[in-house]
């Protein structure tokens, strides 16, 4: 077992740059983690290229281009605000439900988008994968950019909404201060989690057609387990750990706490979420590198 782990970590690098000559080896066993990281670094420009390509493919040809990025989330949120906030009167910890929901969606939807697109990473880039070589994980990693763009759009909307309420209620709902630093941290964490899961689902998506729709059902279901439309304060204190077992729950909750100053800062669950993410990521990298060899055969 130990030998296996060491093999996985350090197994022959693909390239040796020694004394000016550049020597490479191709063999059935793939390079270990160290070799992969090196390789990833060497090919880093591809990551930029792939990211740009995926991003562009989303809004290319549409008349308003990047404006859609803002328009697309706005309408569903307005509808949801009306249903959940006005009709169902779901409490929102003292901030307007629109802002509350927008903040929840900003963190959750960024994750969901990222998950959907990382899962599509391999199948989307099929044409490239069958013709040129680059570290295959890049196809998964590069899909994250779309989610980052979505997050930017949500954040912009949040700020606009905050100004709207400043004008309307003369209250500034966003918070300034050190907790704000947690915002990029939790977003990065959620993106990392989506990559970790995407490493599995992207491989499955190539082999099983069903993945396309099942994944959507799955994320829809998952979103209800996460405090997006309802605040954590609605859950009895003794049952909260059940909700926090879901790694996205502390992420969304922390996001709202850091940005709006509502709810609680779930320190321990957040740490657990970090642990879960790293675990799934490590397993995902292992699985991906194992499945990678036969991936091109399936294309």
């Amino acid at each position: 077992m130990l030998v296996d782990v060491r093999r996985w970590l350090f197994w022959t690098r693909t390239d040796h740059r020694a004394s000016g000559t550049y020597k490479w080896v191709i063999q059935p066993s793939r390079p270990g983690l160290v070799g992969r990281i090196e390789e990833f670094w060497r090919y880093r420009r591809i990551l930029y290229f792939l990211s740009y390509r995926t991003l562009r493919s989303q809004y290319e040809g549409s008349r308003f281009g990047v404006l859609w990025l803002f328009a697309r989330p706005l309408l569903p949120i307005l509808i949801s605000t009306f249903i959940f906030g006005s009709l169902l009167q779901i409490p929102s910890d003292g901030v307007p439900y629109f802002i509350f929901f927008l903040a929840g969606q900003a963190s959750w939807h960024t994750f969901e988008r990222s998950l959907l697109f990382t899962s599509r990473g391999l199948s989307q880039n099929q044409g490239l994968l069958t013709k040129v070589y680059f570290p295959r994980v890049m196809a998964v990693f590069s899909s994250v950019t779309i989610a980052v763009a979505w997050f930017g759009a949500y954040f912009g909307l949040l700020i606009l909404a905050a100004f709207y309420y400043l004008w309307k209620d003369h209250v500034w709902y966003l918070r300034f201060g050190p907790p704000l630093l947690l915002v990029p941290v939790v977003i990065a964490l959620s993106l990392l989690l989506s990559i970790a899961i995407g490493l599995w689902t992207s491989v499955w998506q190539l082999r099983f057609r069903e993945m396309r729709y099942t994944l959507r059902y799955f994320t829809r279901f998952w979103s209800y387990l996460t405090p997006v439309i309802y605040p954590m304060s609605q859950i009895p204190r003794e049952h909260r750990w059940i909700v926090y077992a879901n790694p996205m729950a502390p992420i969304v909750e922390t996001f709202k706490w850091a940005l709006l100053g509502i709810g609680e800062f779930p320190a321990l669950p957040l740490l657990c979420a970090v642990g879960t993410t790293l675990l799934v990521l490590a397993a995902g990298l292992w699985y991906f590198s194992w499945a990678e060899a036969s991936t091109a055969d399936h294309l």
Partner: protein
Amino acid sequence: MDNLFVDNLSKSFILAKASSDVPIHPRQWVKAARRLVGRAVSEEAPAPKREFWALKDVSFRVQPGTVLGIIGANGAGKSTLLKILARVLVPTSGRVVGVGRLISLLELGAGFDPDVSARENIVMNAAMNGVPKAEVLRRFPAIMEFAETGEFLDTPLKHYSSGMYLRLAFSCAINMDPQILLADEILAVGDVGFQQRCLQRVKEEAERGLTVLFVSHDMEAITRVCSRVIWLNRGEVVRDGDPEEVVDEYQKATWEAADSSMSEQGRHVNRFGRILSVNLVSEAGNDIGAVPINERCSVRIRVETFVRLTITECAMDLYVGNNWVLRAHADKPRRADAGVFDVYFRIPAHFLAQTTYSMNVSLVVRRKNDERDYPLVMYKALKFMAYASDAEAVRTTTKRTAMLAPRLSWDIVTESAKAAGDDNEGEATDESVPGSEAADAAAPAEAGGQPSETAPEAAASDTTRVKA
């Protein structure tokens, strides 16, 4: 010191399930569920994995400066080999060690993005091949010079013509200073001038120490460019060595294979007769597999008839690839007794182009007092190559892509001359018409010891003769 080592390289593919194996019908669902629960429940043994070995124990070493041609029929494993070298596929066993930068041209312009400018694409392409950006920028002038697309540097590639696209892709690859270049059928595309330039450039680079792996079905290009050829068949190396020899053997083998599988090709047997064989024979009467375009040859169709009958039609269709080039047919019905006889189609000199032809042969026979036709057809009866003999080669290589290259007589007739001698114009041209050549072709050696009764026929392009 070699710079590319391929040791015992093998690749197997697990064949994908047929769509019928995917559970759709409820009964299939039950079966699938059972299989999940446990094998013990299902009585039938689990189906063995269907494997396909695209490469089996392929080993070779290549010295710097070699242009290594890889030939073989479709499905022989050529592309798989290159894909493994390009790291698109992972080998099942064995290994490859290489020294120096490898650039692959698996498909010209693979990885090019049609929506961004040529400049960005070049930088991108370089990144994919592991070339640092500074180095690309330094090589920019050289790339643009060979590609001849200088003024369109900032135009998105989708506005490029296919020719420009190809030039850019090739130039991009060859100017990245590779030590090993993989080229898969690249030169099959593009115009002839460009192909020549590419081959020329490849040759030059090889002299400087570039190793090239060149896959092609174009035997002419292979023999012209390569310094060594590997022949793959069903994933194994059959021959490895001198281009001329290997290509020769390969072609011979392909023809033999075509020979042996002839029995499955078309309805060449009916109640009254059958086509025994179809061969290409030289002027001297020997069976040949390839013919120089400046020599006459004949197609010999050996037919056996079981009864006395009349051959009403006799035709041969010539194909290049899937293109039907011509149909030659006999001019009048002939009677034939029961027995074996040969039908000759004569092909004049300076008629074929430098390419590979395949041929379908058909005969229609009819019996006395029977109005019905009984066809005898043999598809892909013969495959042969026409080539230019050395003296011709230089002059005719530019016509390589044509399907036929008949040499026709031509004249310059000025208006005044035409007006002056209108009535003896026919005479003037007739002298130089080589059509009569076919008529006085020497009769090929008698086949099968049949008594001959020749009936010379002169036609412009071909003649038919039945010897019974």
